[in-house]
């Protein structure tokens, strides 16, 4: 029986099992490059543009820097009371921004931590931070508000109009010309420079996650109601993908913008934006037998990495088929993953506070 994920208009009942893990795949191995421990559930991690350091946000509030990535040591930069929620390396590679439940935005200097700056945002968790692709702006989501800062001086460029609900995700378009915020009510597109206009892409459900197509022609949003909404820009024509087993937080576009990979259950679905996806069924990549937690494509290469609650890291290459190229067993349940800028290393955060670095090797299928 095949899983019937579909775009609006198609039958949308999620299917079941199938011949999971039947494909011939190399046995799961643990050829770890290195493993470091930050001691708390890893909420988010971000590579430095030079690929030498990783910044980490922890559930108990710690913000960490792993300089020389896999070789350690772990350096603690600061603490958000109640828990950290987000972290991002600045485009200049010299700064790190973080947000947390204490409602502060913190800016750390990579070289030495003394020059930390803390800004208080009123009455809310500071849930998301994002640097513009050119590095000049820093966008912060605090509750229902987006604040745009000058990334260098931290002077406020604009307090954007309050959204009707808490912002769940924040993402600059790859060309830097728009900033998208997901919330219960749709996606708000914010112009990140004067005159700071807003444009609503409405959806009646709660949007939880965002992914821009690399050419900024599509924005996709994963929803609480087990759907993915997407809008084709600039017109804003909307369509939806249905049939997911659970809410969808896992979204990733490949380099060319042909494939949108989605989670929302045990299977990874690949939606083909070259021929569809309207009216087409996705390719289902089946191997995980627990819900997928995070997805990531290489920036220049063609590999897709997925981690799931079954503690497996799988490497897929859609050009070579629907079976994983490699499987790696992780020591703790994964929470997030990120490819290094040179596509060589994967950093994977875990519930037990481990950061695992893996250099995937492709075996012949």
């Amino acid at each position: 029986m095949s899983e019937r994920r579909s775009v609006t208009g198609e039958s949308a009942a999620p299917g079941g099992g199938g011949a999971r893990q039947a494909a011939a795949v190399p046995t799961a191995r643990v050829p770890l490059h290195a493993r470091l421990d930050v001691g708390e559930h890893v909420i988010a991690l971000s590579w430095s543009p030079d690929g030498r350091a990783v910044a980490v946000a922890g559930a108990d509030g710690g913000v960490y820097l792993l300089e020389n990535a896999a070789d350690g040591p772990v350096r603690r930069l600061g603490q958000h009371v109640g828990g950290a929620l987000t972290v991002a390396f600045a485009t200049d590679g010299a700064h790190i921004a973080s947000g947390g439940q204490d409602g502060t935005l913190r800016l750390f200097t990579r070289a030495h931590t003394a020059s930390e700056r803390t800004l208080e945002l009123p009455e809310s968790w500071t849930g998301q931070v994002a640097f513009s692709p050119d590095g000049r702006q820093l966008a912060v989501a605090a509750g229902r508000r987006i604040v745009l800062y000058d990334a260098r001086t931290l002077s406020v460029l604009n307090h954007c109009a309050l959204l009707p609900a808490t912002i769940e995700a924040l993402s600059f378009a790859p060309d830097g010309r728009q900033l998208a915020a997901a919330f219960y009510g749709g996606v708000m597109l914010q112009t990140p420079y004067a005159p700071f206009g807003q444009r609503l892409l409405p959806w009646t459900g709660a949007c939880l996650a965002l992914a821009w197509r690399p050419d900024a022609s599509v924005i996709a949003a994963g929803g609480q109601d087990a759907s993915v909404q997407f809008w084709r820009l600039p017109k804003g024509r909307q369509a939806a993908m249905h049939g997911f087993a659970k809410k969808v937080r896992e979204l990733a576009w490949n380099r060319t913008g042909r494939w949108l990979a989605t989670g929302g259950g045990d299977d990874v679905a690949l939606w083909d934006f070259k021929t569809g996806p309207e009216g087409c069924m996705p390719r289902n990549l089946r191997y995980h037998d627990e819900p997928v937690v995070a997805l990531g494509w290489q920036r220049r290469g063609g590999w897709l990495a997925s981690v799931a609650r079954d503690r497996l890291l799988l490497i897929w290459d859609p050009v070579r088929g629907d079976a994983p190229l490699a499987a790696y067993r992780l020591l703790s349940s994964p929470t997030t993953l990120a490819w290094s800028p040179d596509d060589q290393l994967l950093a994977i955060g875990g519930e037990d506070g481990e950061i695992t670095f893996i250099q995937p090797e492709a075996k012949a299928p």
Partner: protein
Amino acid sequence: MPIQPTTPTDSRVPVTVLTGFLGSGKTTLLNRILSENHGKRIAVIENEFGEVGVDHELVIGAEEEIFEMNNGCICCTVRGDLIRILTNLMKRRERFDYIVVESTGLADPGPVAQTFFMDDEVRDRLKLDAIVTLVDAHHIESQLEHAMEAREQIAFADVILLNKADLADEAQLTRLEQRLRSMNGQAKIVRTQQASLPLEHVLDVGGFDLQRALLVDPQFLEAEYPFEWGGTFDLESGAHVVRTAAGPDPTMKLHLRRLDDALPTAFESAVEQALRRFSDPVPVTECGESIVEGRLHRLDVATDAQFALHIADAGRYALFTEHLPEEFDLALWRGNALIAPTSEREFKPDHEHDDTVTSVGISQPGDLDSTRLNAWLSKLLRDQGQDLFRCKGVLSVQGDPRRHVFQAVHMLMDASAERLWGDTPRHNTLIFIGRNLDRGALLSGFEACLA
């Protein structure tokens, strides 16, 4: 939409949801929970922003944010703020034994409860233990009149704390308890002063736990009737007259039906028939119009009145009246002869107040056909789930030595077969709490499932 079954090895952290109007004593109770030496590490999520650590407890602020789903079904509505707070809380190294979620006086407990069943991240790590509703004994009556939220909070509750009981007298408290019981027949009602009570009434209650027996006040399950009086009459064929005088209400429902024989069982079955008839829609019968055997009437009794009654066949008849006959000086005449009932009985009335939220309890022996039972319950929840706040039941299913147990919040149902009946007599106990409940229809629906 099945709720994830609870397993004996359930290691999820239990959650109590605390509801109640402003001034009902929630803050006092929360402070008691936080300060009392109960040996548990408790996190409290309440409705103001900020995070406070009290010794080794934790208080986190929340701002109500409701996520409705695209299909607009209220049963799929969850609380976005709770999902964010609870999932982040469960990622921390410090483990809590218990979580208490305070819900504002104006909040609908439905989305709070549904968050624990609908959201997979929350459901994986937390289980809803019970909904506890505090009421101010002094003010709840007027709140019930004016606020739909107050009625819903009563309807959802597993435990109702009748707080500030020292400020009300015994008669008032008894009347109040009866009223709350008629709205929610499954909740445990506890009188308190300054929210002082042993915490086991609030924590680890097991309100959603199928393994714990259904605890329903047996008095509640004593059937309630839409009529207060029933009597039997031996009538000749021919013309009769029913006379009434102006009474406390402008109209009164009345139903007369012929009995098959003079045995007491014939009256009992007439009671059951009348029960169903009394929920029929009925126009007003004006003074001078006729009463027809077998039909439900709503007599206009605003002024003194008389109604014709033609008896075709002599025999024994049963008459049921919404109110007691003496309230309206109701009498049955044939010519100049007053006809006295051969027997009469008073019934426990169901609607003491015009509360839109009521409970219907069913308690009957007999085995149920599982196919018909599933079809009935599924249809009931699908069609009336929006109006049904809570349902619970322990059922005897034909051919199965185990008790079948179910519970539901709106359309979300959880059911399983539990321990053996053993020496206990097999019996069915069900309770429905909701708006616009039709006792007659529920009863016939249930009886149609009897094997």
